């Protein structure tokens, strides 16, 4: 009750200040009137009574002031007053205001922008309801000591899990791929996701119109169905709701449209065009093809650990049959669920954290610089403070004023930073690296606003406190008249110089390490040459179009001949996948004759099916032996090529590999090694080149009796020509392909250089931002060091003048200041070295080819920062020595 009354009075006095003032006036007026009445009654004249009453009251204004004080209006009043005063004072120093607000704006803006990215990508929940319960279902495998943390599921595992797992609300498996749509204008290749019925419901959102897949859609033999994504529906059908029930021809088979996804539905880290039902044959579910990504929604309250336990139980029950049990044992299969968010964001977190740290350091530098400016200003206002203190201003009042001024600076800087961050992010979203996950979701939000506010308040507090400590506290407020600066009084500024040099050193080392990594990546021989000359195009020949596998390879061969005949083409070939293409990262286990014993799991190898001529088109050198020929393909010879590192690992030397035999799995037919190709960095330039087996394209006889022969239906053509990427060339390619079959769509039409550049995108993104941070740090440090020393010189001008007048050598005076600068810079450099060494480990995940403690980078950064800082100290020192004593002393 009392609290309420107090609150009521306070709020009233805050909000209704005018009214409260009027009430106070009236209350006092009533009092005076009463008093006059009383005096008149006791015989005084009205005039006398009024005089008397007012005199008794004392100063009316002072009384009112006391009443206001009693009500606690004073603080707000004073703050408003301080703010108005502070703004006026700041506006009188526009250069100072501009410099500080600009520096803070850039510092806070950069931090807010990168924080928004970090917040969106790593912290904000996925855009699905209850997204915490969403998990990716994976297994941990160990093959010959090599650990695979995220092995996908096999059809057999899917069936086992669907039947007996008890921890999932929804569960399903999916794969991504491409599908061809025909019958609606030009044939078009779409990005598709093939999913079982449990996948889409797991996301927790209903279909926009229509329905998700049902058990029937998943059953082989029932009419094929398709779900369109909102974007494709809008693009192709103009958002027509009557589309449900209609059919579209996908891979030359009519599919009935049963639903449309909600707008902007992101599927894990993909934005597909269509969803197709995953249909496993009922009879034989392969236990050992681990190609299906599992996704599940956990039942409420179930933890990932519990789910892993339950799944381990399911696998155990599934391993009833001898073959499956043996496989599980050999692979040491263990369930390894993880939050779905991890699948979406990948490993981008390390880059973002490093950038956040770097920009945080830049903000610290900005604060140090601003603090220095504020200190200098506070110093030059010493006299003003002294006068005000003499007139009776309490030290807390002056301190408060300094704080309020700092707050104004911080808030103005923060506002500018917010604007910069807002526009910076819009540029990032439209131009940012496509490899940055959740790019489209990135925006400034309430959290980012709070972050920007915290940044500006934190910075204000930092440099405000510096100003207060410097000149606001009681014994510091003294007459500035005649006082020269002792070394002690400059301690704050010296500390700032040391901090700036140290922090700038750290940032220079970080950007230096990234630059060196980038150069190292660029220097990698990727196993292919001139990617800008390699034109790629992916072509799929669906079963519905050409059922006969033998004719598929015939068509592919024909296309290749036509492409090779295009003028300017030096070589051409095709493969199941080209280097750096994200598809086909799955490996297979490959046994080496005489090296792998029958009861152990052979090591996992990357593999590709390649045509004759592909290695030449790619620019991959043959180290030993010979290449595939069309004779090998057409006669279905059991031959293979291997990569150099695999040859060395298995047989010691590439030449030894020729004629040796390998086989797929533990029971496939033996295949002869024809040749050895140089290593190809197929997983990205920063990843080691995977040991690879190259099989030939064309017919592959079934590994079990009763199955039909297989063929690669989707292949990427690589066409080497200096004309690659030009429009005319692309038209000629399309003509050549459509001359063979007019209904084949062309997908992934690009040069390998585009892919190459994309694989460098993350490193270059980090490079650009860290480079900017490093450059900013260097500039800020130079400005800061110069500012402090120039100020120190200016402060000691009188002292220097006296010395010079008494006969000191200008050289000695100069040396005095240079020495001071040198000492501060060296302390800063040593601190920075220690700091950089300690922090460098956090950047190691971004580095390639160099160690975090790379001596060259450290030495170069050290030389750069110390040289820059020395130059910044030399200029003021020279100025000090060139002071004209007479002039200075006279003007004092």
């Amino acid at each position, binding site marked *: 009750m*009392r609290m309420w*009354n*107090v609150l009521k009075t306070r709020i009233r006095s805050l909000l209704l200040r005018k009214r409260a003032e009027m009430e106070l006036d009236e209350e006092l007026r009533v009092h005076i009137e009463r008093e006059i009445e009383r005096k008149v009654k006791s015989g005084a004249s009205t005039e006398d009574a009024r005089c008397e009453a007012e005199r008794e*009251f*004392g100063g009316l204004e002072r009384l009112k002031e*006391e009443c206001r*004080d*009693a*009500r606690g209006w004073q603080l707000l009043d004073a703050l408003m007053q301080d703010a108005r005063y502070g703004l006026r004072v700041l506006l009188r120093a526009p250069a100072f205001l501009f410099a500080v607000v600009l520096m803070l704006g850039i510092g806070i803006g950069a931090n807010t922008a990168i924080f928004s990215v970090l917040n969106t990508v790593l912290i904000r929940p996925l855009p699905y309801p209850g997204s915490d319960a969403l998990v990716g279902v994976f297994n941990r495998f160990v093959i010959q000591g090599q650990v695979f943390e995220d092995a996908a599921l096999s059809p057999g595992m899917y069936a086992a899990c669907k039947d007996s797992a008890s921890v999932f609300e929804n569960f399903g498996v999916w794969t991504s791929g491409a599908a061809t749509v025909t019958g609606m204008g030009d044939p078009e290749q779409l990005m598709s996701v093939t999913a079982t019925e449990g996948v889409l419901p797991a996301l927790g959102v209903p279909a926009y119109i229509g329905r998700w897949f049902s058990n029937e859609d998943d059953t082989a033999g029932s009419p094929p169905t398709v779900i369109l994504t909102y974007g494709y529906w809008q693009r192709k059908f103009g958002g027509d709701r009557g589309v449900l029930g209609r059919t579209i021809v996908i891979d030359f088979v009519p599919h009935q449209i049963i639903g449309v996804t909600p707008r902007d539905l992101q599927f894990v880290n993909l934005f597909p065009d269509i969803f197709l039902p995953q249909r496993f044959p009922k009879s034989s579910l392969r236990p050992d093809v681990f190609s299906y990504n599992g996704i599940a929604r956990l039942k409420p309250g179930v933890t990932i650990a519990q789910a892993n336990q339950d799944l381990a139980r399911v696998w155990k029950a599934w391993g009833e049959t001898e073959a499956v049990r043996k496989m599980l044992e050999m692979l040491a299969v263990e369930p390894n669920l993880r939050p779905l968010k991890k699948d979406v964001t990948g490993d981008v977190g390390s880059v973002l954290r490093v950038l956040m740290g770097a920009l945080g350091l830049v903000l610290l530098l900005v604060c140090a610089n601003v603090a220095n400016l504020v200190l200098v200003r506070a110093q030059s206002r010493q006299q003003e403070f002294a006068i005000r203190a003499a007139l009776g201003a309490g030290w807390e009042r002056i301190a408060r004023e300094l704080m309020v001024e700092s707050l104004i600076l911080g808030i103005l800087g923060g506002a500018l930073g917010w604007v910069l961050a807002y526009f910076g992010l819009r540029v990032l979203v439209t131009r940012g690296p496509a490899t940055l996950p959740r790019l489209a979701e990135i925006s400034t939000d309430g959290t980012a606003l709070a972050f920007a506010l915290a940044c500006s308040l934190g910075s204000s507090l930092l440099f405000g406190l510096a100003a207060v400590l410097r000149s606001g506290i009681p014994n510091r407020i003294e007459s500035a008249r005649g006082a020269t600066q002792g070394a002690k009084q400059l301690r704050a500024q010296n500390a700032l110089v040391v901090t700036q040099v140290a922090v700038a050193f750290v940032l220079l080392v970080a950007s230096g390490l990234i630059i060196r990594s980038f150069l190292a990546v660029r220097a990698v021989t990727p196993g292919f040459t001139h990617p800008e000359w390699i034109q790629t195009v992916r072509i799929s020949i669906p079963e519905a179009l050409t059922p006969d596998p033998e004719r598929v390879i015939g068509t592919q061969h024909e296309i290749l001949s036509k492409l090779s005949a295009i003028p300017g083409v030096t070589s051409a070939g095709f493969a199941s996948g080209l280097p750096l293409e994200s598809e086909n990262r799955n490996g297979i286990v490959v046994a080496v004759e005489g090296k792998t014993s029958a009861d152990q799991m052979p090591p996992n190898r990357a593999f590709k099916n390649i045509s004759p001529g592909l290695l030449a088109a790619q620019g991959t050198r043959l180290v030993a032996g010979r290449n595939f020929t069309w004779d090998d393909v057409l006669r279905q010879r059991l031959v293979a090529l291997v990569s150099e590192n695999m040859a060395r690992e298995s047989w010691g030397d590439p030449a030894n590999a020729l004629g040796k035999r390998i086989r797929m799995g533990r029971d496939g037919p033996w295949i002869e090694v024809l040749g050895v190709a140089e290593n190809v960095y197929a997983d990205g330039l920063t990843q080691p080149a995977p040991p690879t087996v190259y099989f030939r394209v064309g017919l592959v006889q079934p590994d079990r009796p009763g199955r039909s022969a297989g063929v690669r239906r989707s292949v990427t053509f690589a066409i080497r020509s200096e004309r690659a990427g030009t429009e005319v060339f692309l038209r000629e390619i399309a003509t050549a392909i459509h001359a063979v079959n007019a209904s084949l769509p062309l997908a992934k039409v690009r040069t390998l250089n585009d892919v190459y550049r994309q694989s460098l995108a993350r490193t270059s993104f980090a490079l650009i931002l860290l480079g900017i941070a490093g450059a900013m740090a260097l500039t800020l440090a130079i400005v800061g060091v110069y500012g402090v020393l120039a100020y120190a010189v200016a402060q000691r001008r009188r002292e220097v003048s006296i010395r010079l007048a008494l006969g000191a050598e200008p050289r000695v005076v100069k040396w005095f200041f240079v020495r001071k600068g040198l000492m501060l810079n060296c302390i800063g450099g040593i601190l920075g070295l220690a700091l950089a060494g300690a922090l460098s480990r956090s950047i190691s995940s971004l580095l390639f080819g160099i160690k975090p403690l790379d001596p060259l980078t450290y030495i170069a950064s050290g030389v750069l920062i110390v040289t820059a800082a020395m130059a910044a100290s030399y200029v003021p020192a020279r100025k000090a020595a060139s002071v004209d004593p007479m002039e200075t002393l006279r003007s004092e």
Partner: protein
Amino acid sequence: MSDDTDLLSGTLDLLILQTIALEPMHGWAVAQRIQVISRDLLKVQQGSLYPALHRLENQGWIQSEWGASDNKRRAKYYSLTRAGKKQLAKETLKWQRLSSGVNLVLGQRVLVRS
């Protein structure tokens, strides 16, 4: 205002609370009432009365309300809140202790001189 009627700091609050406890009244009346009851021994300075009233209100011990006075004019009436009543009891006890203590120390001398 002579020295011997000047109020000990803190006692003014007590007097105001006690006076208002009888019935709600406005500032002038509070001053008059204190003067009358104390038979002119205590005279409240206007200069301290109003700040004290506002302070007490700010502390939540009294509350104010505009009302019509005896001669139909508006005036701001102060009344005691529940917290104010408790505070009055506390202050009264404190004052009694203080004054009896002071009296004991001063002893006979005061009696003789008065």
